[in-house]
């Protein structure tokens, strides 16, 4: 125990003596090291999506420091502000009533024809001028949002509800983008809107079924028209086919009639030619041949030609008049 404490005291003495020789030397090196570290603290980096701005004693001395490793005077002389200039930021804006909440704020837009709609929009924006963004405006996102809200109120107050729900969506987005950018430029925010999207737009739930019925009605109307068109497309070609059939039948009839006439007349002329050679005998032959053909079918009564001096049947009918 005693030996140990004596040893400790001696060790302390040894250390002190070893150091005391170079104390001031060590201090100097230490001071130089500290100063070196202080100087090195001026090294800073700017990332690829950023741009740096250097202030000396609060005053801007350099803008647009590109990405990479750089040096500035250490604190408290110089300061660096970095801005993510290439990053596209995104904010959602809504005029949408959440029934779950207290619902104290009326959250909707009024259209030009005094209808109420709820809508949600998304805005994508970028920092165009880092200097304005940093030193001109206090809360950029808040200002952007309110400029957007004002642009929405302004744009929607001029359109009617049917247009905005259907055909004018694109124009509406463009209007909002333009109106909002005008405001941002006027305020000198250094922000630039990249795009504006209408994410959702809907009439209030109280009247939603009626709006849907209008869509259905439009569908119904087009179905009715479509049906009528298909009816029309069916009956007209059918009529055309029928017409073509009637015409071709008529043409066939005409050809048949002429052919029959030609055939019959030619036959007649041929017979006539032969008949002329022997009129009497041929006439007789034709007459008898016909009777032979005809008479077997009929019931026949043969009587005397006259009863009580009267002719009972006009048999002349069967007699060659020649």
């Amino acid at each position, binding site marked *: 125990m005693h030996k140990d404490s004596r040893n400790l005291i001696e060790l302390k003495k040894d250390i002190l003596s070893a150091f005391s020789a170079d104390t001031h030397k060590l201090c100097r090196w230490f001071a130089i090291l500290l100063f070196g570290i202080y100087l090195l603290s001026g090294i800073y980096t700017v990332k690829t999506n950023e741009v740096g701005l250097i202030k000396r004693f609060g005053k801007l001395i350099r803008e647009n420091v590109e990405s990479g490793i750089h040096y500035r005077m250490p604190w408290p002389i110089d300061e660096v502000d970095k801005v993510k200039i290439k990053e596209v930021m995104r904010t959602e804006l809504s005029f949408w009533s959440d029934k779950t909440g207290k619902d104290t704020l*009326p959250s*909707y*837009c*009024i259209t*030009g024809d*005094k209808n109420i709609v709820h809508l949600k929009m998304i805005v994508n924006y970028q920092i165009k001028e880092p200097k304005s963004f*940093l*030193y*001109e405006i206090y809360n950029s996102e808040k200002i952007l949002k*309110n400029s957007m*809200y*004002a642009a929405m109120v*302004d744009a929607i*107050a*001029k*359109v*009617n509800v049917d247009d905005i729900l259907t055909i004018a969506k694109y124009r509406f987005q463009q209007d909002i983008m333009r109106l909002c950018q005008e405001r941002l430029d006027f*305020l000198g925010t250094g922000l630039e809107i990249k795009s504006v999207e209408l994410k959702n737009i809907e009439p209030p739930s*109280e*009247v939603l079924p*009626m*709006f849907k019925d*209008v869509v*259905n*009605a439009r569908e119904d*109307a087009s179905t*009715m*028209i479509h*049906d*009528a*068109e298909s*009816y*029309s497309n069916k*009956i*007209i070609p059918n*009529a*055309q086919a029928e*017409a073509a059939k009637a*015409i071709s039948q*008529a043409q066939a009839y*005409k*050809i048949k*009639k*002429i052919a029959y*006439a030609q055939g019959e007349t*030619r036959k*007649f*002329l041929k017979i006539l030619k032969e008949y002329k050679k022997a009129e009497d005998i041929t006439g007789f032959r*034709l007459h008898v041949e016909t*009777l032979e053909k005809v008479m077997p*079918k*009929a*019931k*026949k009564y*043969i009587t*005397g030609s006259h009863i009580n001096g009267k002719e009972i*049947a006009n*048999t002349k009918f*069967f*007699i060659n008049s020649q």
Partner: protein
Amino acid sequence: MKTGNKFLIIMLVVIVGLSFLIFYKVDEREHVIITQFGQPVKTITDPGLYYKWPDPVQTVNRFEKRLMLYKTRLIEYLTQDKKNIIVQCFVCWRIDNSLGFFQAVGNNISATKKIDDIVCAQLGSILGNYEMASIISIEKDSVKIKEIEKAITENSNKKTIDSYGIKIKEIGICRLALPQDNVESVYKRMKSERESIANKYRAEGREKADIIRSEANKIQSDILSEAYKDAEIIKGEGDAAATKIYAEAFEKDSAFYKFIRTLESYKRIIDDKTTVVLSSKSDLFKYLNKKTNKVGK
């Protein structure tokens, strides 16, 4: 040597310490007012490094230079045509005259209270000069929201710049709403509007469909009657040509034609239902009579 070193270090520390007390920075985003025992003596708007007496004597008061945003509450106003509308505005403002601001307002919280009072009052009086149709209308040119905003900004600035050193850069209407009673009637109107639009679409659809159908029916009947006409003409041509051919041929010997045509007709007239009464004296039977041996008449 040793004492000299120590002295040097102490001097350095004292100089650095004093410089922190004496020198001060003014940033890009602020105005500074130096007060001497509470009394403003100097206003600095340009950023940079400045010096002053150390603290209890002269104090640095920093003010925001950037554009700030304030939103008013939702307040119901009356338009010129006595219609109620609820409006909320945002106000973009900045400290324009920091000395004036420092003396009359002091800090940002009381500044927003003053802005609120002025802007809401202006909003009420300006809206009273405009009709509802200047705020909400389907006619683009009659909507004067921008004009209203501008008027409120100008009128408010008249009061804030001189009295408070506050400059309002822009006022924008960021929310428009209707009182709850009006909302109910708007819903009612929207419903009936929708119903009439739906009915209109259906009626129009039906009408168009009917037109298409009757058009089709007309075309169909036109085609068929035209075809009938053409067919009859063609048939007539056939009949005429045949008649001509017959006439031309039969004219050559009309007596013979009559003869063989008559014979031809017997073939059709006489069938198994026909009863023929023949005289024995007819030419056909003339050879039945033995008396008649003569051939011919």
